[in-house]
């Protein structure tokens, strides 16, 4: 175990005017039981604290347990040891109150429903009247105007991901969990979507956890970046990102930005050294 | 211990049958039916056990006809499919025939077969064979159609002739499908045999059923229904086991 792995979020100062704790993961282990009684430890003693209104990005090598952390926060899985609390309550309570927005890695759109109905689904499931103006706004936001009536199989992979982001935002959730939402996008669209997400977040200040493989993306969007190590997944280090917002091309060209990118990238590489 | 447990759970999951027997009994008792109208389940079961010797010849006959038809019909279907696969011209003509045969209700087929072949064993066997023929034909053909081009190309490169492609690749792809067809048709074969026997009244469970009905012997008639159900379920379970065996062998 590297010395930095024991760093807790507490040691790094939270960004700006901190308020309530939105997400708190305490010494969470996750052990999956595979076939024939074999066990796989996906997470080991993960600590993570996210304050209300904060944007946290999680990066780490493939298979290190990033999606598993999000599933714990969404109440889809329980930790084997340790605790997970969302706004001081059990995670699934946020879901039952329809205050949670999740964009899954495999986007999970309903194949029989149009783009519009997919985005409006959270309203219907919550038993609320669909806010047409907001749905239209979201469609415009994710750049799918003109595709309202299209069905998922008529869309490209990137377009489907954007629908799934719009759906996650539909009910203006109190907590937004994004699992590699821009994975299928080309670099140009990806940066544009990054900028849009930064803008929405700036407007609505939704507490957000974003899982990504893209270090630049993490630094453009997040207040803090959590670096995880693989097998079992641990929090290796947490970096504050203090660049002023909005972070435009000037920010990404600055030497400080590049320095941070290099540092985080080398931390990701160093994981291989740990594993060996 | 886990084995005993799983057997235990298997029995627990038969609750719908227990429920059915109890409601059958309650229905007879509450309506005050005499045994000439509707017998109680226990008397029917008792008749099956005490008079089992009377049932045995009929069971064996129906079972033989069903299995014979199943094996014969499946083989003919398999051979027919291979022939069609072999010749491109044949396959064009076969499609409409296949569509029509698939839609003929057995109840319309059996009387015609009975008239053409004459009352007796050949008519029963021909009925069960015809029922099993068609699914076997279709499933074999779709199995042969699923041989990937790459596999065929490999064999062509190796200089194999069509017979070798068939025996090496075709069997691999067609056999699992053929077993699916056997499982699907197994209960239909029993049904077809019984319908033919019932109509012609010669021998077998269908004939026993028809006789018991004309003598108003309700316990025997319901007993035959019970025995036929058990036979059919056993044939089905047997076919299912065989399908799994073949599948685990080939994959």
């Amino acid at each position, binding site marked *: 175990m590297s010395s930095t792995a024991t760093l807790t979020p507490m040691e790094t100062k939270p960004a700006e005017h901190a308020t309530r704790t939105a997400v708190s993961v305490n010494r969470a282990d996750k052990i999956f039981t595979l076939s024939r009684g074999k066990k796989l430890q996906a997470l080991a003693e993960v600590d993570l604290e996210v304050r209300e209104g904060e944007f946290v990005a999680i990066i780490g090598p493939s298979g290190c347990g990033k999606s598993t952390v999000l599933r714990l926060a969404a*109440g*889809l899985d329980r930790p084997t040891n340790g605790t997970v609390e969302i706004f001081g309550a059990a995670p699934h309570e946020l*879901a039952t*109150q*329809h205050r*949670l927005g*999740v964009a*899954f890695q495999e986007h*999970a759109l*309903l*194949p*029989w429903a149009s783009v519009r109905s997919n985005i409006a*689904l*959270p309203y*219907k*499931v*919550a038993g609320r009247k669909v806010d047409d103006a907001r749905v239209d706004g979201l469609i415009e936001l994710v750049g799918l105007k003109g595709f309202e009536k299209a069905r998922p199989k008529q869309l490209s992979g990137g377009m489907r991901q954007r629908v799934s982001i719009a759906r996650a935002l539909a009910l203006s959730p109190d907590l937004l969990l994004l699992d590699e939402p821009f994975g299928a996008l080309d670099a140009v669209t990806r940066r544009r979507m990054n900028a849009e997400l930064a803008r929405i977040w700036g407007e609505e200040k939704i507490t957000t956890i974003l899982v990504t493989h893209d270090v630049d993306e993490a630094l453009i969007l997040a207040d803090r970046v959590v670096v995880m190590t693989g097998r079992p997944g641990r929090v290796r280090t947490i970096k504050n990102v203090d660049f002023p917002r909005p972070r435009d091309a000037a920010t990404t060209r600055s030497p400080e930005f590049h320095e941070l990118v290099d540092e985080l990238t080398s931390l990701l590489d160093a994981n291989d050294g740990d594993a060996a | 211990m886990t084995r005993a447990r799983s057997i235990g759970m298997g029995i*627990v*999951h*038969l609750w*719908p*049958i227990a429920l059915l027997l109890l409601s059958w009994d309650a229905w007879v008792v509450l309506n005050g*039916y005499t045994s000439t*109208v509707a017998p109680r389940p226990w008397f029917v079961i008792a008749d099956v056990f005490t008079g089992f010797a009377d049932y045995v010849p009929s069971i064996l006959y129906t079972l033989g006809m069903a299995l014979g038809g199943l094996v014969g019909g499946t083989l003919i279907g398999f051979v027919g499919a291979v022939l069609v696969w072999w010749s491109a011209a044949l396959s*064009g*003509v*076969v499609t*409409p*025939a296949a569509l*029509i045969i*698939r*839609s*003929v*209700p*057995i*109840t*319309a087929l059996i*009387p*015609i077969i*009975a*008239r*053409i072949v004459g009352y007796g064993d050949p008519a029963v066997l021909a009925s069960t064979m015809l029922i099993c023929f068609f699914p076997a034909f279709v499933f074999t053909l779709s199995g042969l159609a699923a041989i990937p081009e790459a596999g065929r190309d490999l064999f062509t490169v190796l200089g194999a002739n069509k017979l070798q492609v068939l025996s090496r690749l075709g069997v691999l792809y067609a056999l699992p499908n053929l077993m699916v067809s056997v499982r699907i048709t197994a*209960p239909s074969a*029993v*049904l077809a045999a*019984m*319908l033919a026997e019932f*109509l012609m009244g010669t021998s077998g469970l*269908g004939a026993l*059923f028809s006789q018991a009905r004309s003598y108003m012997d*309700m316990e025997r*008639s*319901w007993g*035959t229904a*019970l025995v*036929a*159900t058990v036979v*059919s*379920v056993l044939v*089905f379970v047997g076919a299912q086991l065989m399908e799994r065996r073949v599948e685990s062998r080939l994959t």
Partner: protein
Amino acid sequence: MNTPTRTSVKVAYSLAGGALLILAAQLIGQFGLAGRAWPPVMDVVSYVTTPAGASLLWRNTLVTFSSAAQGFLLGAVIAVLGAALALVVPIIRPGMDRFAAILHAVPTIALAPLLITTVGREDAPAVIAALSVGFVMFVTMASGFANTSSAHQDLFTVIGANRTRRLARLELPRAVPAFFDGLTLSAPAAILGATIGEWFGAPMGLGLVIVSAMQNYQMALLWAAAMAATIMSLLAYLVFIQLQRVAMRRFT
């Protein structure tokens, strides 16, 4: 090698094949290759065109159709409700699955005595049709419901769906292709079930006509009735296979 020409070649082949089959049936009948029980096709057709023959067939076809249709509706509704119940109350699921498998294997003729005492001779055809349809529908719907996608289930969990909304907005629409698969499979089963029911003393119906024509050696009538039953079954199959294709396109 574009698709339109390939389909038209297929259709041409099928038409040629159909014509060939009819010709073969005619020749077998004409030369008496299969004995007196195989009449030439033209004899059957000319029987159907006589007013008496046409009206006899038509009336009995309607009776069988209505029993089959009633049974089809009843069986499909009950089976879908049963499968949905097994989905919502998982504890009864293994029992119901096994029960359906056993019922599926029951030779329908074995149910006849039960049905004649319970529902009577006249309704037995519809009920036997309903039972045949019900088994097929239950099995296909249960497997349609079991074929869930965990990503969609997770989605409905995180947006806080309650049991009814999950059923209505995810599980039911997802099972629509399976539903039409089931209908396609059970359309012939409904007609078979209805005709079996008619063997047990129903006052009218194609099943009855077929048996009495067989016993009285009325070959033209026997063949005509068998053809009527076949055509009905074929049409039902063709209609439902089209619906199934539409459903497949719409729901996946």
